């Protein structure tokens, strides 16, 4: 079953079995502006929850993406190299960043579900 969880920092992880697809939300991409470059980790890298996973560059700013969960990087989105705009256009779909094999699935319980995240965004 696929479930998507969110952080208050506007990252998401869409879980299918023990694989989580990580990216940033629509709110995040609208705040970042036109994205020009994404620096992604290497496949095989082990990431702890809260550790820096990627760097997102827009024209006027560079932001860090912190991993919402712990795991091992099993795939990175190669499309982002030539088409960073995918993050702006389809952040929850084609604009995904990395796929992690979750090492601590219990961490998901600490994250927001879709309704809770939407509530959070509405306060901003």
């Amino acid at each position, binding site marked *: 079953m696929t479930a998507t969880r969110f952080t208050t920092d506007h990252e998401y992880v869409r879980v299918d079995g023990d694989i989580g697809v990580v990216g940033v939300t629509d709110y995040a991409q609208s705040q970042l502006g036109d994205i020009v470059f994404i620096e992604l980790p290497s496949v095989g890298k082990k990431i702890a929850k809260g550790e820096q996973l990627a760097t997102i560059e827009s*024209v*006027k700013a560079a932001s860090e993406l912190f991993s919402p969960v712990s795991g091992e990087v099993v795939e990175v989105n190669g499309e982002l190299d030539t088409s960073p705009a995918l993050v702006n256009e389809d952040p929850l779909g084609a604009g995904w960043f990395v796929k992690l094999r979750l090492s601590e699935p219990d961490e998901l319980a600490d994250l927001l579900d879709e309704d809770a995240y939407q509530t959070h965004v509405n306060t901003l």
Partner: protein
Amino acid sequence: MRYHPLSNADRDEMRRAIGVADIAELFADMPGGVVEKFDLPRGKSEIEVERHLARLAAKNIAASQAPFFVGAGAYRHHVPASVDHLIQRSEFLTSYTPYQPEISQGTLQYLFEFQTQVATLAGMEIANASMYDGSTGCAEAMLMAHRITKRRKALLSGGLHPQYAEVARTVARLAGDEIMTLAPDVTAAEDLIAQIDDSLSCVIVQTPDFFGNLRDLRAVADACHRHGALLIAAFTEAVSLGLLTSPGAMGADIVVGEGQSIGNALNFGGPYVGLFATRQEFLRQMPGRLCGETVDAEGRRGYVLTLSTREQHIRRDKATSNICTNSGLCALAFSIHMTLLGGAGLARLARVNHANAVALRDMLTQVEGVEVLNKSFFNEFTVRVRGDAAALVERLAARGVLAGVPVSRLLPGAGLDDLLLLASTEMNTDEDRATLVAELKGAL
């Protein structure tokens, strides 16, 4: 005062608008208040300033006043009158960094042209909009190699300009990185390749080197790449790029050097202009400003500073460098001179330089007590003299001849006190060479 447009009446009106009776009220936060007296003279008229500075200028022996053979990292070349005239145009001289590109297309277009010229000369894919100078550029290249390879140890050839090496060592030491410098390599005999291993991020080799020797970098480049290290090729005489195989063609990963020779006067050491070029794949690790092509809202081609997220004003403590300035006007001078020359003209200029150096070398073989050491050179070479080279240079200076740079000036205590660097550019005449030879004969 002639530079201050506000009149006392203006100041009164402005104070009234602000609501203060005395300007001192605006300085109320300064602990201790305003300092009333400084041990400094009152302002001078333009006549007095000219007189004061002209007197100081007259105490120096300018290159045009003596037969001149001084090189060692800065070279005397002819700069066409158009160059200095153009860089003094208000819109170039008194403009700011092109952060508002719509009203800075002049600056941005010449930077784009400059980047193209530098990359082409270096034989590399991309170049930046210039560094402060060759020596700081060299240190930045080293740091860039550390970032790319994730190693923090550099190896410096013994043919690298000693002050470039000192700068790199200073930066490395204070940043907590490792660095190894080979002994001064007078005849380009060092076995650099034997020192290359997997611990290095980069090897820095200069050609033409400090002693004037020309080096084929291909084998060193291969050795570097086999060990996952980068080859940084340095140069101090940009005119040499017109005649020699480019560092890029020899396998360099970063090419960095001094551009002063093209378009810029000697200026007692500054301002100069650092040239920095590298491979496309290393683009995001490159320090310094970058100018890129784009279009405006009407689809017309234009230029902007780009990839600023590498830089300090955005990335702050995670920036590739702390650099906030390029050497704009000096880069413009370089570019204008390069445009006037064209590639063919630069090659011709380089051939004249080399011819003059060969002519000098040939004449020196007739001088007892002087031995030319180089097997190859561009427009500068090393001679061994009988006795102390520094004392010789002083004696000849007192006789009105600026006879090169004693190696001991830049490498004191290295046992090289009898070595002298002689540079010969298109500015040297037959008469200059004859005078130098006569004076050397007389002194030795």
